[in-house]
């Protein structure tokens, strides 16, 4: 399956991926409307320290602890992509308790949000990858 891979060597720490992610998932048609004067809550997050930076988002694990642990059945695996049914999710955060990458975050509605590889938004393919100026995030098939 095609997954997102991050190479910290190439990451500039510019945070553009976070902005592209927030825009792609905003449901808005212009970046200005989506991002101006708002504190973004992206599904991909940069960690940075002492000159090192890298992006973290859902790894779409083959043995997804979040999905197996979800108390409601709101997290499901569809063709390898771990998806969230925000209507079903009650925001108990059991998935945050179990995700070893810290890749699941609360959303504004109380439900959680996570990377769904942009399969469920207007971008249709990972916006962070398309927006990364230095190819530090790629979307590819390995093995």
């Amino acid at each position, binding site marked *: 399956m095609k997954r997102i891979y991050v190479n*910290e060597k190439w990451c500039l720490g510019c945070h553009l991926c976070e902005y592209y992610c927030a825009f792609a998932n905003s449901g808005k048609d212009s970046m200005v409307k989506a991002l101006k004067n708002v504190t973004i809550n992206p599904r991909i997050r940069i960690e940075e320290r002492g000159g090192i930076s*890298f992006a973290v988002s859902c790894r779409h694990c083959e043995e997804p602890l979040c999905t197996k*642990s979800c108390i409601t059945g709101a997290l499901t695996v569809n063709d390898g992509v771990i998806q969230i049914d925000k209507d079903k999710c*009650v925001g*108990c955060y059991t998935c945050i*308790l179990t995700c*070893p*990458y*810290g890749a699941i975050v609360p959303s504004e509605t109380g439900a959680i949000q996570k990377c769904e590889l942009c399969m469920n938004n207007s971008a249709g393919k990972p916006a962070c990858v398309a927006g990364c100026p230095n190819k530090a995030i790629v979307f590819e098939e390995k093995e």
Partner: protein
Amino acid sequence: MSKYVIIGNSAAAIGCVEGIRQVDQKGEITLIASEPHHTYSRPLISYLLYGKTDEQKMKYRPNDFYKKNKVIKRLGETVTEIDKKEKTVTLKNGEKIPYEKLLVATGSNPFVPHMEGLESVKNRFSFMTLDDAKALDKALKKDTRALVVGAGLIGLKCVEGILDKVATVNVVDLADRILPSILDETGSGLVKKFLESKGVEFHLRDSVERFEKNKAVLKSKKTIEFDVVVIAVGVRPNISLVSDIGGKCRRAIITNNKCETSIKDIYAAGDCTESADCATGDMKVMALLPNAYMQGETAGINMAGGTKLYENAIPMNAIGFFGYHMITAGDYIGQTYETLEGENYKKLFYKDNRLMGYIMIGDVMRAGIYTSLIKNKTDLATIDFELIKEKPQLMAFSKKKRSEFLAK
């Protein structure tokens, strides 16, 4: 004849169906459960009362689940006996159902201790099942005075569910603090203060000496008038089907890492079992939904002839009240590191260069990174512990580890 028989219809049972079907698409599965409902998420009964979900949304799996997985369901039927020689289970009506492999996923029942005068109380409830929740809901009115006995996870989830629907909620518990099974003193204090600010009244280090119809007389001689009482002092694992036929049990059914009981071809999973805490090796009842599902799945895979081991379990919990969240995991032993800023509290427990447990209240972001340190028994000397103490982050791992996490 059914190849697989499953007793139960909750997280562990559903995990088992999904486990079996990963290996065996065809073998007949019969699933028997006392509760008559489509599989639902038990923890959601409080959210149902709170209005955060509804009966359709609280279904643990979609409407077509049984059909899709070719499961013969016998809902509303209770198993009274297992015959390990004949390999059959007997239903209440006397019908016998043969099995090749059996899963016992019977969960637990509310424990109601003897309390003087309890029988005289008309509106008394437990809080374990969808039917309990619906019955309780019917008894609640705007001017209801509710009394909840038990300040543990179930009692307080019930409090959250009903608080906005009633006039007053009083909570009585023998313990000196709330949520004693998951929180330390500081943590309990924070959550108690928060719940008090919402209008809940606590009576700790106290217990009900006797009920007199609509009045509870406490040991402290305080009296509490109420219209509805919920008893949530604890649960008892449903072990009798297995203990009656000589299966090894302590507090719960003892299972190994394949989720087998001590009886051949009988497996057990979920709240009715004891299994090993991978961080300490101790056998424990780790009654929570993720563990139930994963045990069930493991059992299912093994029942169908596959191989899977269940060896990553630790006690853990994610719970919240009115948007105030807490996540806890592991065992509270060893040295501690603590921070408290306003309503955000964190305590880490570490020993012999390993993280043993943690409590996070308020800010629970990325807690799972700590959970994985406990489960993986990560040697803290191989990461930047000072950094990860501050907050959970992948930066604290070596470059090589980070690349394994993110680039492979």
